[in-house]
């Protein structure tokens, strides 16, 4: 394994690991706040129990997210010192704002998790809101930095030297809006459906359980609208990629020949050397329509670009198919659940819907991983699109396979522990003792 590949793999592992916890840190506070608000409005103690149970899970996941995020911020300079030397002064602004947002999130999460008995219910709820808002802001800022790598702005390169730096223009780069919208919706959809899937699983075994019924309703309230809006945001993103990173779009679609009225290639296995896609379904004019909203539009093919500027086409193409397929599944389930609820039917009594939700539990997260694969692998061989190649950004230190293996082992270990802990300590029906506590007449909710 070359040092470059080792560094890229370490970065990939670190991002893939961290993104799960980061997404939970964005989505879960919203669920907790909704549950807590419902408790305060209705006095229904089950919602309080729900907020507390979700808090415990969030505490574990947030801690792992915080430390793995620290790793990432250091890895920027440990693995890509030449990238940061070039880009730090241009794109540091959103990183710094992310630092503030994350700081606020950590402060209020501490207050939310440990302060229930020390502050008023109102202050407690608002600290939850502060966690949700700052968590979302922190995600938006960091994705802004990534968007800059896809569509660099806010500087000029004159004779190889960076001049005329405008950090605000860099932050508000052309890809920032699309990418942050897509990622924020993804975070809510993935978290909502993961939680809904878990509680749907428990409802299949225990259909009358009031705890899981309420959990399901809150989770779907967050997950389903986000999933439904995601195709719109995906369309905005795709058009952005089509105009600014045509080679990435061509790789996503495994589109080799430049042509007007380009078809959409669904599925299949790209044969890069032959310049074809095997076993694919072609939808006439589909790609031109999607990318430019015009069936006759010319879509540039990979062959229009020098071969050394191509990303890995099979990986990008298949990751994109996976993302779209899973996202579509979640849209369909959202429509189904929404339709069921609108007709006033009982969601929890519909076993087929519950099964579909269980199946969908991991899909949002897999779609997020696939989507990041599309955007990151699809940007290769550049670390800053069109400006700096990844190979020129890597640290000169040899032996990078060692830290790569170390972090891989560490994250595998942590991943197993977290899943096991959530399963053993958090994800289960309330015990009879907890039920009687919730229902004891005169028992003060929250004690």
């Amino acid at each position: 394994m070359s040092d470059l590949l080792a560094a890229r793999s370490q970065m990939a592992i670190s991002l893939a690991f961290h993104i799960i916890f980061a997404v939970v840190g964005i989505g879960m506070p919203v669920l907790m706040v909704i549950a807590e608000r419902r408790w305060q409005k209705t006095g229904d103690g089950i919602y309080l129990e729900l907020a507390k149970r979700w808090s415990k899970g969030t505490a574990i996941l947030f801690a792992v997210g915080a430390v793995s995020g620290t790793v990432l911020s250091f890895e920027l300079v440990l693995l890509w010192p030449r990238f940061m030397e070039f880009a730090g002064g241009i794109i540091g602004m959103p990183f710094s704002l992310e630092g503030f947002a994350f700081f606020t999130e950590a402060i209020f999460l501490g207050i939310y998790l440990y302060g229930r008995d020390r502050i008023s219910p109102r202050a407690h709820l608002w600290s939850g809101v502060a966690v949700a808002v700052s968590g979302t802001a922190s995600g938006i800022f960091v994705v802004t930095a990534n968007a800059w790598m896809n569509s660099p702005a806010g500087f000029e390169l004159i004779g190889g030297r960076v001049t005329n730096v405008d950090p605000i223009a860099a932050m508000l780069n052309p890809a920032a809006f699309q990418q942050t919208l897509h990622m924020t919706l993804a975070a809510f959809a993935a978290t909502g459906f993961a939680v809904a899937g878990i509680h749907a699983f428990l409802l299949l075994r225990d259909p009358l359980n009031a705890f899981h019924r309420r959990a399901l309703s809150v989770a779907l309230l967050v997950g389903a609208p986000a999933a439904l809006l995601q195709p719109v945001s995906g369309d905005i993103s795709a058009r952005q990629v089509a105009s600014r990173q045509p080679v990435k779009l061509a790789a996503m679609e495994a589109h080799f020949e430049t042509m007007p009225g380009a078809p959409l290639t669904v599925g299949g296995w790209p044969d890069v050397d032959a310049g074809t896609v095997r076993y694919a379904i072609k939808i006439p004019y589909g790609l031109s329509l999607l990318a430019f909203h015009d069936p006759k539009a010319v879509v540039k093919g990979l062959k229009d670009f020098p071969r050394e500027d191509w990303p890995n086409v099979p990986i990008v193409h298949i990751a994109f198919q996976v993302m779209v397929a899973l996202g579509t599944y979640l849209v369909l389930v959202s429509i189904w659940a929404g339709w069921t609820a609108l007709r006033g039917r009982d969601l929890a009594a519909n076993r087929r819907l519950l099964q579909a939700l269980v199946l969908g539990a991991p899909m949002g997260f897999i779609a997020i991983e696939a989507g990041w694969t599309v955007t990151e692998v699809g940007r290769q061989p550049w670390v800053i699109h069109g400006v700096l190649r990844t190979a020129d950004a890597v640290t000169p230190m040899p032996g990078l396979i060692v830290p790569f293996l170390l972090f891989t082992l560490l994250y595998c270990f942590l991943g197993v522990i977290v899943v096991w802990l959530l399963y053993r300590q958090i994800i289960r029906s309330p015990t009879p003792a907890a039920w009687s506590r919730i229902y004891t007449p005169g028992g003060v909710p929250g004690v």
Partner: protein
Amino acid sequence: MSELGLPHIMAALLALSLNAYVLFGGADFGGGVWDLLASGSRRNRQREVIAHALGPIWEANHVWLIFAIVLAFTCFPPVAARLGTLLHVPLTLMLIGIVLRGSAFTFRTYDSQQDATQRRWGRIFSSASVITPVLLGVSIGAVASGRVGGETSGGFVSQYVQPWLTPFAFSVGFLALALFAFLAAVFLTLETHDHDLCEDFRRRALGSGIAVFLASALVLLLSRWQAPLVMAGLTTSPWALPLHLATGATAVAVLAALWFRRFRLARIGAGLQVSLIFWGWALAQYPLLIPPGFAIEGSAAPHPTLRALLIATAGGGIVLVPSLWYLFHIFKTVPADPGAQQP
């Protein structure tokens, strides 16, 4: 403000956030040290006090480090690149320590309360709390020694190991460990109503205060040979004598406050003492960020970036300072009796 002053202001902010990390994050690591060294008949209760002191605040305290690295790579990109390149090994090990410390602490809180499980997570949490500060100190020591900021050449060992594998760097590592343990012990005296536990931490504070003194002496002694620039700053510059006098006076005052059980006074004094030691290092290097080759002026990012960042920092501070005050007001004005509350 003059444009020329901007890089220096940002360097001061960078130093301030590292200072805050040393004070707050450092005390959390120190808590882990006392978890490892918990002893006597009250050892489990000592551990409970430590866990309750850390629980609500460690993640927020930890962000100071993220702040420092972000400020470093935004305001002084070549400095961050150099540190990341030549100190790859100790920084990577430090990160692994940070990951293990934080996750093991959280796992211990939420895993089964059986003794064996708790001990297993406790061991990882506490040993990572010992190793991580040493590696942080080693990295700072390597910077101070001037072996990171010069021309480098040669193979893996001479470029990526020798800059930090020095007696001086490790003496700074042990100083960091002693400082963090000392801070934690002083702070912990105020985290319990229990007289016996308070006395336990008072004894530990006095003991680690002496360890701080010994480690500082060792650092100074070794700096003669291995960090001449810092040594020169610490001995010959005009501020050197007043700083040493202030540090020494604070140290004596803290020990006296501990002796007479004036714990609130000791808490303020210990924070001041550790900050003075930190600023002694920072000023001794000034205006170099990494001696000898990386100065504040020469390695600063373009001024528009620094200016935008300064404004962002001011704006962020308006949110951050009251939030932090609220956090500490809730959890640190009245000690939480262990067992009285569960998250």
